[in-house]
């Protein structure tokens, strides 16, 4: 069965939710990946949406994080202050998904301003939302972002959400309690932080993608894992479930 790059990303995101209890989901690819996991290998996965739904079981992909179907199918609904204080900050959520406009080699994320400076940006982006605290407090973070030299930059123009700071020990020094980004899933492959240096290393390429392609799409000298693997292509069952979900 043939498939699109976005489908490979969604399937990879879904597969990353093995042995996970609760994950914090935004709209877009993270929501698709998390809902796909619930419909395939992780029927008990607890989806948490920042507008207040805990344990949402949406019958189709929600249009926004406050979609009625999330609240109506949730185990519990809480207010937004409680969501951030009792549920995110407390470290109760195993995995948080984040997107990025820019990301650097330590998986620090920018979703605030691009170019110029903060007061005179070339492009003003939406800003932080819940990302800084998700990045700080969730058990681990999975970043989903299309790989390009525009997005994968030497230095982010603004640190909206902290990844691994400037290397080993930084998260601990900053008092950030979660593990930070453990996977960056792109349309080309998967990057994971090196256990020692915390720098992102290409550990997987998707079928048909070469390590060189990934390097070319990266604004720094991308390290390649010695045992670089090729991602398993989406199975028929995965693709069928994904397409049903998207069409619903």
């Amino acid at each position, binding site marked *: 069965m043939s498939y699109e790059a976005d489908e490979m990303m969604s399937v990879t995101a879904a597969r990353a939710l093995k042995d996970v209890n609760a994950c914090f989901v935004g709209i877009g690819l993270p929501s698709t990946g998390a809902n796909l996991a619930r419909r395939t290998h992780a029927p008990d996965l607890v989806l948490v949406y920042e507008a207040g739904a805990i344990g949402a079981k949406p019958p189709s992909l929600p249009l*926004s994080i*406050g979609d009625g179907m999330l609240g109506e199918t949730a185990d519990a609904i809480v207010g937004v202050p409680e969501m951030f204080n009792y549920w995110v900050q407390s470290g109760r959520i195993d995995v948080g998904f984040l997107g990025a406009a820019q990301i650097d080699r330590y998986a620090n994320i920018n979703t605030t301003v691009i170019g110029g400076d903060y007061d005179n940006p070339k492009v003003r982006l939406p800003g932080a939302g819940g990302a800084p605290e998700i990045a700080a407090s969730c058990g681990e973070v999975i970043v989903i972002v299309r790989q390009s030299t525009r997005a994968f930059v030497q230095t982010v123009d603004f640190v909206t959400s902290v990844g691994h700071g400037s290397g080993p020990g930084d998260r601990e020094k900053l*008092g950030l309690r979660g593990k930070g980004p453990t996977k960056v899933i792109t349309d080309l492959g998967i990057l994971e932080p090196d256990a020692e240096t915390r720098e992102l290393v290409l550990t997987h390429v998707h079928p048909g993608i070469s390590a060189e392609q990934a390097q070319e799409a990266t604004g720094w000298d991308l390290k390649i894992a010695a045992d670089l693997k090729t991602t398993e292509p989406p199975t028929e069952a995965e693709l069928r479930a994904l397409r049903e979900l998207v069409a619903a």
Partner: protein
Amino acid sequence: MRTQPAEITSLADAVKDLVHDGDTVALEGFTHLIPVAAGQEIIRQRKRDLTLVRMTPDIVYDQLIGAGCARKLIFSWGGNPGVGSLHRFREAVQTHELEIEEHSHAGMANRYVAAASHLPFAILRGYNGTSLPEHTDTIKPITCPFTGEQLTAVPALDLDVGIIHAQQADRKGNVQLWGQTGVQKETVLGAKRSLVTVEEIVDELEPKPNAVVLPRWVVTRVAHVPGGAKPSYAQDYYERDNQAYKAWDAISKDRERFAAWMETL
């Protein structure tokens, strides 16, 4: 302070009486129950120099900003949810027509909590390592007097007016909203004056799961505005009109189309 029960008036009268030029005004609703009609009434009444507050400024804030009502925006995520950018907001920031004070959701939520609690500030684990404290004065470090840990303090929002949309009020002005209720309670309790627009005025509020009830004596005005949250959701009344969110992108992108849209308001 002897409090008075809410008065039920028209939306136009409520906005005229409660919102003054220069005020700090929050219109809240976290993708659900957004008080769109109240925001558009503020535009119609040509209020100026407002400090607008909202965690997720979306299309009605883009409209308020484009219409020139705002001097400043206090926010944590300014976008067209599920669609993309807010072009009026983006342009106003890039041309310095709009001052901004930028936070994260957790920071903003706790600023509302502090306001509702009449505390001058709130504490959270947040912002450490991000660039936000360099650019936002209202983020400061604070040390735990018991453990020595360094946390972050944010000040209470100092709201003149808090505006929300709810499903129901009774004839006395007691308000009930349900489903995902965001920071709406804090918006009303944290403001000096408050306005609740409602889908329906009923004889008696029937207790509901996941409801927030605001007794009439903490609400200043109630206005009956069916459809007042459109194109956003009002659970058990209507769904989100996703087309309207998508259509806004083109209107907002083009100054002339935006001006023409303003004429229709």
